Each structure stands twice: as structure tokens, then as C-alpha cells.
């Protein structure tokens, strides 16, 4: 997953530099990352890890999924909303914390993972990349859909 994060960073750097939206270079990477994170969550749910250890992995990967979904939504609407290069600049702000969390995933004893995810949520909120809105998250993976569609008013 780290390679995908690096590729995504390059895609956003290029968009920012050229001030031109490039969905073909960014959206497939986001989808791939989201899929891998979903698979990761399924694996740890089915593992024999304790609830606490599972949560330390599940929660950070979920927070990244929410951020990626927000990125995707904004990229899809960027042309219409004139959101580039702002979307690229905003996304670049969260790429480093995302990479830090991903490099920690799988290290079940890492107690910092929840804290890193919490900081990512705060940074993403500041950059308008953490909108918890059931309508905007319709296209998210089933886990996202299950949680958000039921409860957000």
C-alpha cells in the first residue's frame, strides 16, 4: 500500500504544479487503496486477535477509507466546482499522515495507531476531507455504507 500512497502523492503534486485536474492518474490509485484497506479490515475481523488489538488496526484503516472517499468525491466534482488546485493542496496535507498510519498497520501492538488516526481525522477535517455525510458516502465500501447510512441524520 505504501507504493500506492507514494504514487498518489506524485499525482497530486503534478495536479498542483500544472493546475490541471488528472482523474486518470488519481482515482484508480484511490480505488485500489480503498480496496486493499477493505480487504485488510476483513482479514483482521476474521483473525483471532483480541478486540483491543483488532480495534488498533480497524479504526485507523477505516479513518483512511473515509478520507479517501472524501478525496474521491471532491475529485469527481472538482471540474464543476473549480476545486483544483485546492483539492490537490488539501490532499497533499493528509498524504504524510496516511503514509505513517499505513506503515504502522499490521503492527498489532502499536498503541500509537489510534492516536495517528485521530490526528489524521483532525487534519482531514481542517482540509475539508472528512465530511461525514451519508449521501456523499453512498459509493463507499460496504463497511462505510453500513455504519454511516444507518446513523447520520
Amino acid at each position, binding site marked *: 500500500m505504501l507504493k500506492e500512497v507514494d504514487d498518489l502523492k506524485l499525482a497530486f503534486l503534478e495536479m498542483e504544479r500544472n493546475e490541471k485536474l488528472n482523474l486518470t492518474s488519481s482515482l484508480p490509485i484511490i480505488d485500489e487503496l480503498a480496496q486493499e484497506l477493505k480487504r485488510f479490515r476483513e482479514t483482521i475481523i476474521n483473525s483471532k486477535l483480541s478486540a483491543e488489538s483488532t*480495534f488498533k488496526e480497524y479504526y485507523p484503516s*477505516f479513518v483512511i477509507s473515509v478520507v479517501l472517499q472524501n478525496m474521491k468525491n471532491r475529485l469527481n466534482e472538482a471540474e464543476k466546482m473549480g476545486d483544483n488546485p485546492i483539492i490537490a493542496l488539501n490532499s497533499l496535507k493528509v498524504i504524510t499522515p496516511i503514509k505513517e498510519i499505513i506503515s504502522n498497520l499490521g503492527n498489532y501492538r502499536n498503541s500509537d495507531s489510534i*492516536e495517528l488516526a*485521530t490526528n489524521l481525522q483532525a487534519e482531514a477535517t481542517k482540509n475539508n476531507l472528512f465530511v461525514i455525510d451519508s449521501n456523499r458516502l453512498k459509493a463507499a465500501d460496504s463497511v462505510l455504507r*453500513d*455504519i454511516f447510512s*444507518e*446513523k447520520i441524520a
Partner: protein
Amino acid sequence: MEAGSKIILDTCVIIAASINHSCNNIPKNIIDKFHYVSKSLIDHIKNNNLDLAYVLEISIIKARKKLSKIITRHLNRISLTYVIDKETFMKEHTFALIKINDSLNEHVIGVNVIPLGEDHLLEIKKKVNEFYKDVNGIILRYHPKNQIREQIRLAGRFGRFIKKRDIKNDYKKDFKIARILLEKFNSPEFDDEDITILSQARYFKKELNEEENKIAASENKIIKEREVYIASTDYHFCEVEVEGSLKCLVPDKIEERFHVKAWKPEKILKELLRK
């Protein structure tokens, strides 16, 4: 409350204001016992655009750490009590922590955030550290053993007739408060961040005083004193919820030494509503 007064929100207040979450598939809700009073104060300040609330960036960092610990603790407790499938469990707690963090982020938007960096507070922090050592000393005097020893000493040669049990009963309530405060002061949760909050409050108060003096000197008029408050529910700042003569020891000493009012959120809210 005079215009220009300042309120510093302690970490416990922003945490309490953020924790109120009902779970769909888990019987136990997550709510802080000071949620309503803390949230009411923050909401009142924000809804009325009162530009007087401050929060230290270090408090926000500490609050985020604490929130994740609270949720993890809740998770552990629930997992021992109820049989719930792992996936539901993860979803519920992930959702809870996301929502609670979202609420924290929302609460600090619109509040003045004091950035990290404490060079301007170094001198005051030394004084605050000394202050807590002094208060610790006062509380130690109320330790049961020391009280009994002191009573016997004061009674001189009649000391041997004093019944220890009677002394204990006389000071029972204060013993309890002393024990609570000593525990609080020696807990790892009472840390440099708390010292920084009181130091920042003192710094604000000094700034306000200097400003007031300047205006008074130049315009030759008397200005109403502006106050600095710390909104907190923690006993290292505000009154203890147990009756006794030591109940208000800490906030009284804080006011005496630093001219800062360490009040509970509901008391500050009442003051705001009164004005």
C-alpha cells in the same frame, strides 16, 4: 462578567463536551458525567459569539489522546460483559470514536487556540510549580496521622487522654478531601499541561492588568476589573464535590496567589447568563 474577560477551557471540559454517543447495537452508551454542563458553556459562548474562550493547543493534543484511551477502555469493558460479534463491535466503536473526535474538532472551532511554545511562560511556570508544592504541603497537614499528632502536641501533657477516634471523627470530611487531593496531585494525569494552563491564565491576568493600568493612567478613569477564569471540573483547579473546610482550598489559593478564578463550567455559565 466584564467585556474583555477571558476563559481558558481546561482539557477535561473539551473532552466532556465531546463525549455523548449512543450506540445502536451495544447496550451501553458513552457519556461523560460533565457532558451537559461543559457543552452548555461552550455552546453558549459560541452561539453568542462571545470572543472570550481560549484553549491551549497542548490541551487539544492531550484531549485527542485521552479520547482514544476512553474508547479503548470502554471497548475492553464491554467485551468482558456482552457477547457481540466482532464486526459489529468494531463498527460501533469506530463510529463512536469518529463521532466523538468530530465533536471535539467542532468544539474547538471558533475558540481561540493558543499555539504550542511556552517561552513566555517559563518564569510563571516555576511559580506555579512552587504553588502546587505549597498546596501539597497544606494538604499533608490534614493527613489523619499529622492531625492526630498535632492535636496531641497542642494538648501538651494532657495529650495522652485524647482519643484518636474522636479526632478522626472531627476531621473526617477533611480527611476525605485531603486524600482525594493528594491522590490527584500525585496522579500521572496531573502533568505539565495543567501547570501550563494555570501559567497561561496568570499570564493573561498580568496582561489585562497592565492594559487596564495604562488606560486608567492615560484617560484618568476607573475601569472595571476584567477577570481570567479557568473552566474545569478537575480538582487540581476547582472545588471538590465533598463538603468540608478544605472543599475550596485549591481554587481559593489559586485566586489568592494568581488572581485567577478556577470555576466549574456551570458556575461560569451562570455568571455569563447573569451579565
